[in-house]
């Protein structure tokens, strides 16, 4: 049976394969590494009984805005392992971690307008609501729904470690003071 567990760096090998075989988008490996090294608590994988990765969720925190919130970057489940509730389990695990570890107020995600199956999962099973529509969000020109789900937020404030996570997508750069594009393009 498939298990849901936190991702390790080693899983990236199999996760990238899973991504290639599931989604038209194929992210840079750097992108995965950036996520797991920045918010390791938010990455979960679904592992088959023989150690094969059959699904994953990739998420991050947006902490620069006034309301600290999480964002689901990518969710994938191999076609051969769909209809087993894996996507729901993966999403729930990531959402719980956002709430409990980082005190997220809400969680957001983007979904292709045409992806009915995913849309149904988000709205009906997971309780997301359409917040906005982003025109031509995807590379191929398709619109995206900007969806949100309210979380309970931080119950207590005794951990401040995440306040240091104030680096956005350019955190790979040596220092913030330098221009964004100087270091890595």
């Amino acid at each position, binding site marked *: 049976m498939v*298990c849901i567990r936190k991702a390790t760096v080693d899983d990236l090998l199999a996760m*990238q394969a899973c991504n290639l075989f599931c989604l038209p988008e194929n992210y840079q490996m750097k992108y995965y*590494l950036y996520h797991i*090294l920045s918010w390791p608590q938010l990455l979960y994988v679904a592992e088959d009984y023989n150690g094969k990765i059959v699904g994953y969720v990739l998420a991050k925190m947006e902490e620069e805005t006034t309301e600290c919130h999480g964002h689901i970057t990518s969710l994938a489940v191999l076609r051969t392992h769909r209809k087993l509730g894996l996507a729901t389990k993966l999403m729930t695990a990531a959402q719980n971690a956002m709430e409990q570890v980082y005190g997220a107020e809400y969680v957001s995600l983007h979904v292709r307008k045409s992806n009915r199956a995913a849309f149904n999962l988000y709205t009906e099973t997971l309780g997301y609501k359409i917040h906005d529509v982003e025109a031509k969000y995807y590379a191929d020109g398709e619109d995206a729904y900007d969806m949100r789900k309210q979380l309970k937020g931080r119950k207590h404030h005794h951990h401040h*470690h995440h306040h240091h996570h104030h680096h956005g997508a350019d955190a*790979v750069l040596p220092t913030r003071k*330098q221009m964004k594009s*100087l270091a890595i393009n």
Partner: protein
Amino acid sequence: MASKFGFAGGIPERRVRPIWDAVDSRQFKNALKLSTALLSKYPNSPYALALKALILERMGKNEEALSVCLNAKEILCNNDSNVFVDDLTLSTLQIVFQRLDHLEMATSCYEYACTKYPNNLELMMGLFSCYVREYSFVKQQQIAIKMYKIAGEERFLLWAVCSIQLQVCCGNGAEKLFQLAEGLLKKHIASHGLHEPEALSVYISLLEQQCKYGDALEILSGKLGALMMIEVDKLRLQGRLLARAGDYVAAADVFQKLLELCPDDWECFLQYLGCLLEDESILIKDTDPFDSRMSQAVDFVRKLMVEANNNSVRCPYLAHLEIERRKLLFGKGDADKVVEDLMQYFIRVSFLKNLVKECEGSVSGPTKELGQSITVFKIQNSIGELFSLPVNDLEDIAVQMTEMFCKNLSLSKELDAQESMHGEELLSLACTVLVQLFWRTRDLGYLLESIMVLEFGLAIRRYVWQYKILLVHLYSYWSSLPLAYERYKSLDVKNILLETVSAHILPQMLASPLWADLSDLLREYLKFMDDHFRESADLTFLAYRHRNYSKVIEFVQFKERLQHSSQYLMVKIEAPILQLKQNSNNIDEVECILESLRCGTHSLELSNEIRGKSLTFNEDLKLRPWWTPTFDKNYLLGPFEGVSSCPRENTHNQIKQTEENVLKTVEKRSLLPRMIYLSIYSASESVKENLEANGAVVDSKISLELKTLLERYTKILDFPFQDAVELVFGFSSGQKPFEAPSPDMIDWMNFAVFLNAWNLNSHEVKFSDRDPSSTSTWNLVNTMLRKYVMETIRCTGPVVSSPGSHLPFLVQLVTEPLAWHAVIIHSCMRSLHPSGKKKKKGGSVDQSNTQLLHEIQNSIQSLCDTTEMVMKWLREQLDTPDDEKFEAIFSSILRNGRNDGPGKVFKILESSSSLIKDVEVGPRILEAVKSWSPAGDVRKIIAGQRSLLSEFLKICELKLKSLQAVRVQL
């Protein structure tokens, strides 16, 4: 030195901003102009210089960039108190130095700055990051401790602790260092406590690494335990620690608690059961505790089933089966009951699946039926049942699968082209069944059908990677490597997949004449790996800054895993060998390449480095088809051996065997460049020796080293040197029979070639007691090459109708041993006729070289003959008209009134377009089905074979030309 507001690197920001903007918008020329202007105003500003260097590097002017950087470094480090030093300047310089592969210079800048401005935390953090980039764990630790002492911050302490852990896990640090780290943490906790969850997990892991499970448990249940914010994570950790401490009863309790919270956590259930059973008291065949423990588990699982009001929970039901299975293993179960339970389970699961689909409002009936049929086929396949079926039944199954796929196409009518279709797996399954039929019957028609089902599938949906991978292997097997490569490229393999997936094509390409494509493949792979290693240090620092300490360790270990990749090592060794092959007709080029490889020692060092360390194997072997579980094994090359040889059973051993072989191969191949270098040298020395007065000093070092390498080479081939010499003479004289073409023979041939080169100087191989026809080692090599090429051609049928042909061996023979032998001849000739002074004073070649000249003459003649033999064979293959080849292949699936044999699957595919009605499958699928051309598939195979043969022919022609050119000089 404090940064002032509105200043950057000591320069007003308004002056620098336009440069930043220009760089941002990639207007480097403009940026350079602005930066030159800035430098005229601030000629001695390290920051202005650093900016210029950065722009130059961006423009690709690396040398200029480096010299500007060095200038800046000099100014920074000359102890002038007027020079402005800050982190912005240093980190900008750091970026450029890093890109220019001079990390050490960036480090020394920071080291200098930290001495000049002690206790400056910002600079110290910069220095820490420099050490992180250099993986200098000890220095990392020292600077982190300094920062901790100054600021007293928890994170700096943790940086130091991580650095210590890295010394033990990835460096040469002794385990007692853990105690030091533990002590540091303890002291800090006593005075300040701990505030970060990651800090706690580092602390726990530190204790775990020292097997102090009790201490770890105590901390976890104490005040610090509250740092673990996710309750189930904490329980999981507790359970694991208890189990490792051997307290299985308590561990089982914890896992039971965990299961109550997460009833669908299968992993947790297995641990629970494991703990119940791992108690030593049950290991004694005393059944009492076993029974009571099992009934305890049964009760608990029943409770979970009742409590799980959510119908989609599967774990308790599967857990029930697992318990019954364990009972059976213990000799206390009831097999019939297990079967009954299994049935119940499947009924339940398929009911659930159905339920989910109904909720989602999708079609349930036919999709469900299709899914069930596929499951049955898959189970049959995975328990190896298909291997025991008679041919006719097996064929029926392939037909059923194909038919089922076609009939159900209508289910995918509404789907987008990018979405997987219903029943897609049927074609992969049909393919593997057809390949098995081919293996059993050797009827080419089945092989063709196995390709056709996949091409048919790809015509309908071109994204199915499973089909593509199978095709890569089938086309490679059928000598249509260019077509295999095309399918491989369509997989769009990039990033880390280059490490996990490229093994599907790389080995075939290495033994092929497709040098341009191979060179691309190798370059792309190396670029990815090297870029990653360059970037990974930056990423490690990211984990430090985000305080994800456990990820620091994991990530450095991951980097090591990639760095020790067997494939990476192999590619680093094969890339220069390819260059040598490509340029083997030009000895000056060969020398140039060897020069850049530090005279061939580079590869040697690579393989020496890896000895003692274990290589990692990151290829995704599960994606490979059953008939080739590893790159060096292909069941189709041997006869079908019945059910007992069911490949699946042997996979594990096969993988282990392959991993051992890879080590040997890598070491063997790493010797080649140096042996070629020494052989060239030895050959030219042998001429000079003759030219100069008798008794001139021959560089005996060369001879000795070459002998050492030859001995190492034979040792890898499992032979002592002397026996190896006997063996090659045996081969050449015909006393030892040639084995069937095998990679080993290429190794032996290479050995003979270098043996000859060595013997030119050492004259150690004596001939008195050997076969009189082998009068010299020259003769030995010539005879071996000729005989083996002849033998390989003799047992190689027409490429078109002989899948698994020996063509790759032939290619290797010509492009390796034969090519190296020719290089040695070139070397002799060059020494005999130094360019510029073709005629030496006193007439032509020295008398003493007559014997050598004679040998060379014979060798050139022999190599020309051998090469022509290959060319003749290649031309025969190429001269056969394509239509004739087409007939030969295509007729294998035309049934023409036959009742048995291949063709049934093809018939279904062929008639599918007429059977499918537009209304049923929709215009897209209908169009695709109509576009599929079976004749086109066959023609593509033939074209692929043709282009492979022509590439090889071209190589042979060039080789022949270059040999003839040498002959003219004689």
